[in-house]
């Protein structure tokens, strides 16, 4: 039962990872690809990590898993911003397509 | 079914070969440094592959310790080479 639930979570996580990859391959510009990678992969990792969590018995390891997920979440949010700004510095033309308050 | 140790070992040899080739063919010194580092990874890969005995068996710890040492020495050598390069470029500017 636990195994089945765990696998369900892991495979739903995989679906999000795959969606992120398809986004990377199909989306037209850097900012969209950035969006695909950060959003899909964070959800994917969250689901996958909860699936793995069910298989662990040591509370310390569970805590570590939670820490890893929070870290990736926070890091990709800020890291994504940094990369986006970097992309805009390099391709100022993309800035024109942004909504007014994001410039 | 090919054994992963054999596959990764062969890849290590190929990577080392690519590193040697690029180290000779490339003229740019930073590129040569990259090449020497890729060569090193190839050698490490051969070592770790020979230490691997399947998913259920503990690997041989001695090559692991060797490679760990090797990684630190490689980065120290890279740093020294980059400092030499910088000193050289500075002296060329003068």
């Amino acid at each position, binding site marked *: 039962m636990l195994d089945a639930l765990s696998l369900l979570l892991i495979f739903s996580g995989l679906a999000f990872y795959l969606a992120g990859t398809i986004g990377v391959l199909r989306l037209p510009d850097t900012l969209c690809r950035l969006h695909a990678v950060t959003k899909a992969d964070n959800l994917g990792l969250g689901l996958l990590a909860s699936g793995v969590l069910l298989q662990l018995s040591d509370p310390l390891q569970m805590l570590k898993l939670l820490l890893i997920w929070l870290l990736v979440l926070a890091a990709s949010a800020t890291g994504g911003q940094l990369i986006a700004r970097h992309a805009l510095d390099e391709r100022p033309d993309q800035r024109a397509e942004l909504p007014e308050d994001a410039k | 079914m090919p054994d992963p140790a054999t596959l990764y070992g062969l890849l290590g040899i190929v990577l080392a070969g690519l590193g040697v080739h690029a180290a000779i063919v490339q003229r*740019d010194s930073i*590129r040569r440094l990259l090449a020497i580092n890729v060569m090193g990874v190839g050698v490490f890969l051969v070592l770790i592959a020979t230490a691997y005995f399947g998913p259920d068996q503990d690997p041989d710890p*001695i090559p692991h310790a060797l490679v760990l040492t090797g990684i630190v020495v490689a980065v120290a050598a890279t740093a020294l080479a980059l400092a030499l390069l910088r000193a050289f470029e500075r002296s060329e500017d003068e």
Partner: protein
Amino acid sequence: MTPGALLYLDLLMMGLMLVLAVGALYARSLRHAVILFIVFGLVVALVWARLRAPDIALAEAAIGSGLAGALLLAALRDRRRGAESAPRSPAWQVVAVGAVVAGLVLLLAWAFLDLQGERANGPLADTVRANLDVSGVSNPVTAVLLNFRAYDTLLELTVLLAALLGVMSLGPQRPPMDAAEPMAAGLIGWLIPLLIVAGSYLLWVGAHAPGGAFQAGALLAAAAVLADLGGRREFRLPGQTWLRLLAVAGCAVFTLVGLAALIGSGVLLQLPPDWAGSLILLIELFATASIASALFLVYLGGHPPSWNSREGHPDA
């Protein structure tokens, strides 16, 4: 688990490594080449994990990719724009060298496959496992590094020190970076304590699980490099004189312990089994500090600015 079941994963990872290596070696733009090399290092760390070498995966992620990457990117920043693309050898040389190297690779591959038949989990590995109780630690890699082959590790610390001396004698440090924009600074601000905690954890856990002085030192050095990237070189770091002292301390403590063992047992670096655990922890503590400060000082790329005035010829 059925052997060979992960074959498809292996093939994927091998393909990736090859593509990234070729990219890192032959990319037209040097900047792309460096980025690809760093990404290559991250993939290699995954491969180490796959080959049951977590000790090395930790070191590769921290040193092979992180620190080496920071060094190379700093070197790129130093370069003049015009020096971006030095010429490559003429095509006939590329092909000729390629043919010779291909021959060598085939020869080596043949030798490797020939030896592969009689490969066994060697007698040395059995010796290590049989003597693990007297080593003072239960992680076999740490036992080899700090007890059975302590010579190698002592000499390795010396190599690191020699590299540091070389770097410091070659010229002044890079000027500090500008202060980072608020968002990057915020990210750096909470990553640094996390790296310090993770480093201390790896040092402690190294006695019985993957981790130890090298990984811990590398993470601490990464924390210092991050502070530098944020434009705050002196941010709560020990002063540079202290860093230099710490860089020597690892070698010094290691040598002293080795000499004490020489007096006690008549053999240099032969740790007494009852004390080995605590002595290894002592050595590792100082080795961690040494590795961290040496790697950071090496990253700074020269001697401190205060030395210029003392020499009387400021070279800027």
